[in-house]
Structure formats: structure tokens, C-alpha cells
């Protein structure tokens, strides 16, 4: 750690980006951005979705053409024109989307494009050995390098992508949202690898939506907003609230206000039960579960990934059929066969991967929003343009969607905006029960706030909302009641109030964890 005491300014920068400007079909997405990367330093790139982070990374790695500005590597102008060129300069990138080949083996994926050459072409023995070394560096030496990539979990794939990036011993490592598919322990493992590489003198560019990870791992950060650099900080010297307000460019108090507003909101205990599940379950998926959802109530599902949150949501909404238990809607017993049936019963569900599964990239925003409503009415009775406009207008302002985006293909929009479009589509069907599975994952804080506000408002209008999120803070902030799940069972229910915090839930899960073992602390 002695190296960390040296003032970092002393080391000469390995990459300097100056005045980088990028336009997509006339729209300026990056406007004179500067970025300096130094060896032995983790530099975080912060900003909302659409702030230009991915574009800046693209400019550095040669996937995005630069309109103006220069990229200096070791002080020499070397504007990358392709991924291969930037790799040759020692810049390795782990892109946000998985960029590995599912059919090839782990070793092939790590080594493709730079396999070790023998006299007769690729030497597989030596290539595999190098791949194994890279796997060991990222801490997954127990993965069989011959296994096909498709057989691995998303988290392991992510680590394989990192192994691929570091196998050439790059001087600059770019990580674009490397932890978004990882759970907590896996993320910790990845951060450990990042620190080790930093200590070996690699310059790391780290992009993540998880503030805590950024604070845990970075030495310095650059904040982007609307394509411009708005601030650069030493991580040790910046305050979280200040950083967030820089990122969203709006007052941080709004966040706090929402919280207190939710706390003061009291749904009537006697209000009508909208949906009731009795011993609902499915073999191998979820143990028998009882649950009531009342009108005007936000019920949060809390639990670790794989605890049964999503499974409960899917069974409740008929996306997957339960093999035991009953489901009651407004006092009547129902059998839901698939999402279309749920929609007819005014239950709207957003899936965990909703952006990938839900958005039809080729259709415009307007068409995406009216899709579910149209399906509900039947295709024989098309919505007129006026009706469409009425529906779309209702949700534009509520969700801070821009009017000019309406007729753009939804695939062109940022993740946060797509998420809002999906939400608008669900709301357009005017559901009585709204089930949101991870509606805010991987989107920026501004969009998050918009969605949370909207959820709170919906509850106020009498909708029964299920809110599922891995971010416990969010669950605590929004929910009236919190259902805690663990190992595919409901282990308890909390009525939210001033005494309930993230720690309350964590303790509940942890207690259940230690429970069966009498030898453990009590």
C-alpha cells in the first residue's frame, strides 16, 4: 500500500482525452469532454444514463467516431479507430453488453484474436495455459477453460470478460458497468481484482451505477452531465450528496422529500384486498405462500437474489402457473393462464429483464406505449391517433419523457428512458394491481426518482403495487409493507415505519440464516 501514499499527480498520465465531441445524426451527445487516466489509479466515470459515459468509452476504444478532440496516449496523439487499434495501444475494455461468444469455450473466448502462435498457427496448449493464468488472476481458476461459455452463470461470464481484457496485460483497463449482473459477494470479488490491477500500475476507468462500489474502489472521479464534464473530484474529498446533485443537476432534497412523504402516507388498514394468495406455490420454485395486497398499498419484496422474489411475482401474476394454492382477485377466485389473462384481470407485470424482453426496439416510443392497451382491446378495434395521443400525453409529463422522443425508435433511447416507456405501457392499461420486478435496476438516479415518485402516486390513486428491488434502501423508502423472502420461502412481513431500516431487513434474513444451526451465536 506504500504506493498509495505517493501523490498521484506525479505520475504522467497514460491517456489524455481532450475536448472530445461526438454527434449521432446531428445530436451532440458529447461536448468537449476531457478525461485523464493515470497509471495506478482507478478513475470513476459518473453520470446518469444518457450523460455520455458509454459514448466517451466508445471514443476511447474506437467504436465511436470522434467529431473533434484528441486522444493522447503517452502524450502522443493516437485517436483510436477500432477496438483492435486501441488494444494495440494497451487499452482493454470490458463492454457493458456481453461481448463474448456463447458457443466457444472459456479459453477460446479469452484468447480469441490474440492466441499464442506456434510454428503451425495457433498453439492451443499454450493459449489455454495463458487463459488459465488470466482466470486465476480474476479469481475463478476453478472454471474449466474447456467448458462452453453458455454453461456459465452471468456473473462468471462477466469475470471471463475481465479475464479476456487483462490477458494482454493492458496499461489501461476500461470497465463499463462490470458489476451490474453480479450479486454482492461477486461484486466484492471483482473490486478486489480491480484494486490488485491498480496496485500493479494499471490505469482503470470504472463506470458503475452503484455509488458505494465507486466510493469503495475509485481514487478519482469525473462527472458527466448532458455530454459535458461538470466536475472532477478526488474520491476522498467528495461528499455523496454533492456528487448526486452534480449528476442529476437537481436538488438532492427531492430524494429526501419523497421519503418523508411516503412515511407519512398511511393506507387505511381496512381498505379492500385487491389480491389474495393462499398457500400459493410451485414445486421447485416457491414454497406455499400467503399474501394479501390491499388497494393503495405498496408492498415491497425484499430478499437476496434468487430468494424467490421474482418467482412469487410470476406466480401471483399467472406468468407462471402455480401447482398449489389459490389466487383471489377482489374476493373472487381466479385461474390465471399467462400474462394476457393477467392483463384482462387488470394485473400488470413488468419482468426483471423488462428492457430486453419488453421493449420492441424497432417500434417508436408512441407505439411501444400503446402496445399493451391495444392488445387488451383486441386488434380488431385499433386505437385512433387521437386516442393514442390522449394516452401518450397522460404519461409524458408524469414520467419526464421528452416530446421529441415520441416518434423515435425505442431502441435508440437510453436504458432509463426505455424503462419509463415500459412503465407507461403498463400504466396505460390502468391496472388495479401493478407488479414491478426490479424496475430501477441499471438506470440512472434521475429516472429512478421519476419512477419512484410515480409508484408513490399510483398507490395514492388506489392501485395495489408490488415493488421488487435489490436495493433495500429503495424498498424501505417506498413500501408500506415489506415481505421478506429467503431460500424460496416467505420468512416474514414487516409493517414499514420509522423504526424499520435496511438493517432491520438484513438482520431478519441473517437471523433466518443462522437459525437452523444451534451451535451458532445463540
Amino acid at each position, binding site marked *: 500500500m506504500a504506493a498509495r501514499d505517493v501523490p498521484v499527480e506525479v505520475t504522467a498520465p497514460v491517456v489524455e482525452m481532450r475536448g472530445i465531441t461526438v454527434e449521432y445524426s446531428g445530436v451532440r451527445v458529447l461536448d468537449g469532454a476531457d478525461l485523464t487516466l493515470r497509471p495506478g489509479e482507478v478513475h470513476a466515470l459518473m453520470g446518469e444514463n444518457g450523460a455520455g459515459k458509454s459514448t466517451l468509452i466508445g471514443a476511447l476504444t474506437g*467504436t465511436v467516431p470522434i467529431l473533434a478532440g484528441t486522444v493522447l496516449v503517452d502524450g502522443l496523439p493516437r485517436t483510436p479507430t*477500432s*477496438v*483492435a487499434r*486501441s*488494444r494495440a495501444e494497451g487499452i482493454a*475494455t470490458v*463492454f457493458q*453488453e*456481453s*461481448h*463474448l*461468444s*456463447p*458457443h*466457444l*469455450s472459456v479459453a*477460446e473466448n479469452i484468447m*480469441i*484474436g490474440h*492466441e499464442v502462435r506456434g510454428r*503451425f*498457427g*495457433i498453439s492451443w496448449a499454450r493459449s489455454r495455459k495463458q487463459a488459465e493464468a488470466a482466470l486465476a488472476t480474476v479469481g*475463478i481458476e*476453478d*472454471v*474449466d477453460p*474447456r*467448458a*462452453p461459455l*453458455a*454453461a*456459465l*452463470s452471468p*456473473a*462468471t461470464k462477466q*469475470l471471463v470478460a475481465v479475464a*479476456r481484457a487483462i490477458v494482454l496485460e493492458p496499461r489501461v483497463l476500461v470497465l463499463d458497468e462490470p458489476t451490474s449482473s453480479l450479486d454482492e*459477494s*461477486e461484486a466484492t*470479488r471483482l473490486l478486489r481484482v480491480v484494486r490488485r490491477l491498480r496496485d500493479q500500475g494499471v490505469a482503470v476507468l470504472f463506470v458503475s451505477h452503484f455509488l458505494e462500489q465507486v466510493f469503495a474502489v475509485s481514487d478519482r472521479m469525473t462527472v458527466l452531465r448532458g455530454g459535458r464534464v461538470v466536475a472532477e473530484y478526488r474520491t476522498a474529498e467528495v461528499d455523496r450528496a454533492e456528487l448526486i446533485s452534480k449528476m442529476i443537476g437537481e436538488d438532492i432534497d427531492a430524494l429526501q422529500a419523497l421519503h418523508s412523504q411516503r412515511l407519512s402516507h398511511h393506507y387505511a388498514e381496512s381498505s379492500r384486498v385487491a389480491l389474495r394468495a393462499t398457500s400459493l406455490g410451485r414445486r421447485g420454485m416457491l414454497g406455499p405462500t400467503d399474501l394479501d395486497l390491499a388497494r393503495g398499498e405498496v408492498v415491497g419484496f425484499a430478499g437476496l437474489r434468487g430468494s424467490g422474489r421474482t418467482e412469487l411475482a410470476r406466480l401471483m401474476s399467472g406468468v407462471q402457473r402455480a401447482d398449489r394454492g389459490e389466487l383471489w382477485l377482489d374476493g373472487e377466485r381466479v385461474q390465471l393462464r399467462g400474462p394476457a389473462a393477467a392483463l384482462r384481470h387488470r394485473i400488470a407485470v413488468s419482468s426483471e429483464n423488462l428492457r430486453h424482453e419488453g421493449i420492441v426496439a424497432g417500434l417508436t416510443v408512441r407505439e411501444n406505449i400503446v402496445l399493451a392497451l391495444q392488445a387488451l382491446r383486441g386488434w380488431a378495434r385499433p386505437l385512433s391517433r387521437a386516442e393514442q395521443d390522449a394516452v401518450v400525453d397522460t404519461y409524458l409529463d408524469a414520467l419526464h419523457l421528452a416530446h421529441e422522443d415520441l416518434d423515435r425508435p425505442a431502441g435508440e433511447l437510453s436504458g432509463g428512458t426505455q424503462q419509463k416507456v415500459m412503465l407507461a405501457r403498463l400504466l396505460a392499461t390502468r391496472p388495479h394491481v401493478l407488479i414491478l420486478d426490479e424496475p430501477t435496476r441499471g438506470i440512472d438516479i434521475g429516472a429512478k426518482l421519476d419512477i419512484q415518485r410515480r409508484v408513490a402516486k399510483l398507490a395514492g390513486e388506489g392501485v395495489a403495487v408490488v415493488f421488487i428491488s435489490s436495493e433495500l434502501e429503495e424498498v424501505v423508502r417506498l413500501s408500506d409493507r415489506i415481505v421478506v423472502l429467503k431460500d424460496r420461502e416467505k420468512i416474514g412481513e414487516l409493517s414499514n415505519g420509522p423504526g424499520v431500516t435496511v438493517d432491520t431487513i438484513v438482520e431478519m434474513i441473517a437471523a433466518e440464516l443462522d437459525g437452523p444451526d444451534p451451535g451458532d451465536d445463540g
Partner: protein
Amino acid sequence: MAAVAPERSSTGPAPSPRERKGGPSVRAIARRLHVDRRYMPVIGTFVVLALILAIGGVRYDNFLSVQVLANLFINNSFLIVLAVGMTFVILTGGIDLSVGAVLALSAVSAAYLLDVGVPAAVVLPAVVLIGSIIGFLIGVMVHVFDVQPFIATLAGMFFARGLCFVIAPESIPITDETFVAIAGWDTWVGGQWRMTTSVVVSLVVVAVAFYLLHYTQFGRTVYAIGGGEQSAQLMGLPVARTKVLVYVVSGTCAGLGGLLFAMYSRSGYSLTGVAMELDAIAAVVIGGTLLTGGTGFVLGSVLGVLVLGLIQTIITFEGTLSSWWTKIVIGVLLLVFVVLQRVLTLRRT
């Protein structure tokens, strides 16, 4: 299949020391015994091939003779070459419908050029080059102008077939001495196995293709493109060049196939090789290559051709059956294989 489960659990939080200590030996054995799942379809094709051989051997007296097997290679050498080229294209997720017509064009050109007195030493490379050029043009259409491979190669097919008739509507016999000598050359391996020029050429093509696919960057990029073109681009691989090159490879193979066909039939006729591209595609699919690209092996395609050839042989041996039964059996086999692949991939996910 069993190898998948430990894979997943091993990615959890740090493995316990006990597991690390006892693990390696067991895992090493499992690893050694574990057949890569990617080989499964090829193994399946091999089993089918063995089955057909067994059925033929039981039903007919002279079926399991060296002569029948040697003839299998002799009669199908051009199809092997076509299937090899097709494998490259299909591995990238494309398709090449032009190869049958290009084969005919190459054969007709060879017959025509020899007929007008051009020396064989010029004709042989020239007709192969015709295939390469058409392949290149198709590759440019597919990559630069982003035309669907189906459409681009369909255009190539009409173009090549039309050109055949422009050159010679009638069949031209080949009488050139050098050419006939080359075509008629043969050798007896082990005293019994007859190998002709065509067989040697086709086996060399298979070997070269195998080397290209597994030991060069070009081959690796072919697989990566099949796994996802954008991923391949983000991995910094030369996607553009490779996408054009696979059609050049396929076109060259079709040109070479035409030459082999001319040697086989000692003539050039504009109606040869009609629908032969479909035979090639069938062979590739039966050989275990996914039409969506990314997985498959050139040796599988060779097995696929042999399966098709053996079915034909059996129907010849049967004697009373119409040759259209070949098509029916191939159709059924194709369906079975595609469904099998589907089941395999479904299980994977």
C-alpha cells in the same frame, strides 16, 4: 451434462479450502472423461453413419466392401468440397445458395475453354478463380451493402446459371489429353482402396479447411461472428474482412467442385448441379452445424455428405426402389437432426 452443475456452484463465494484440496483429482478425471458438448451433434452423425453401414451390411452381401466405401468418396468428392465451403458460410450465420450454379459455371467454362484449345495448365486455375470472384462479389454485397445473404447468393445463383447458358447451352465433352490424364489418375491405397484425383483434392480441401478454422485467426473469427457479429466487433476481430472472405472461400470451393465434377463427368453441361446447393446445406446441417452459426465442424459436414451418399448407395442396392426415395429419406433425416439440435440447445438453456 454433469459437468455443468459444479461449474455453477464453483462461481459462488470463495470455495472452501476442503473442497479445493479434495477437488482437483476428481475434477481432473471428470474433465478428461467429459466430452465437449459441442461434439455431440457430430458424434450423433457418426452414430447414424455407423447405423446405416450396419443396416446395409446386414441386408446386402457386398455392401460392407472396401470398394463400396471407396466409391462413396469418389462419387461424392465434389459435394464434400461444396459442403466444406458451405460450412464456413453457415458458421458465420449466413447461407450460400449460389454454389450449385457456380459449380456448373466452373464445369461449363472448363469444358468450353479446353474445347477452344486453351491449355489445361491455364484452365484449371482459371475456373477455380471464377468461383472466387463470384464469391467475392457476393461477399461485398453481403457486407458492404448489407444485403441478406439469402438474397445476395440467390442473385449470384441466377447470374452464374444464366452465364452457363450464354457460354454453352449444350453439353460439351472434354477431350483434352492433359485434363483427361489428370482426371483419370488414380492410386490404390493399401492395395484395395482406390483414390482418384478428385478424392485426393477433396481430402486436401478438408484438411486445409480444418486448419483454417481451428488454427488461424480467420477461422476463429468465423466462429466468433456466428456467436454474434457485434460481439466479434467489440472483441476487436476483423469482422468485415472475414465476412467477405467466407463467401470467397465458398465460391472458391464451388469453383473447385465444378472442376472435380468436370473430371467426374468428362464434360461440361449448363444444367449440372441444379439444387446441389441444397444437398450441400443438408450435409452441413446433418453434420451438426447450426444454421444460426457459431457451432459446427468441417469434419461433421464430411460425415453429413457420407450419410447422404450412403443413403443413395443403399437405394441403389435395393434396386427396386425409385431414386426419389433418396430425397424422402434425406428429408426425414434432416428433420430428425434439426429437431435433435433443437432439443440439445433447449436443454442447454
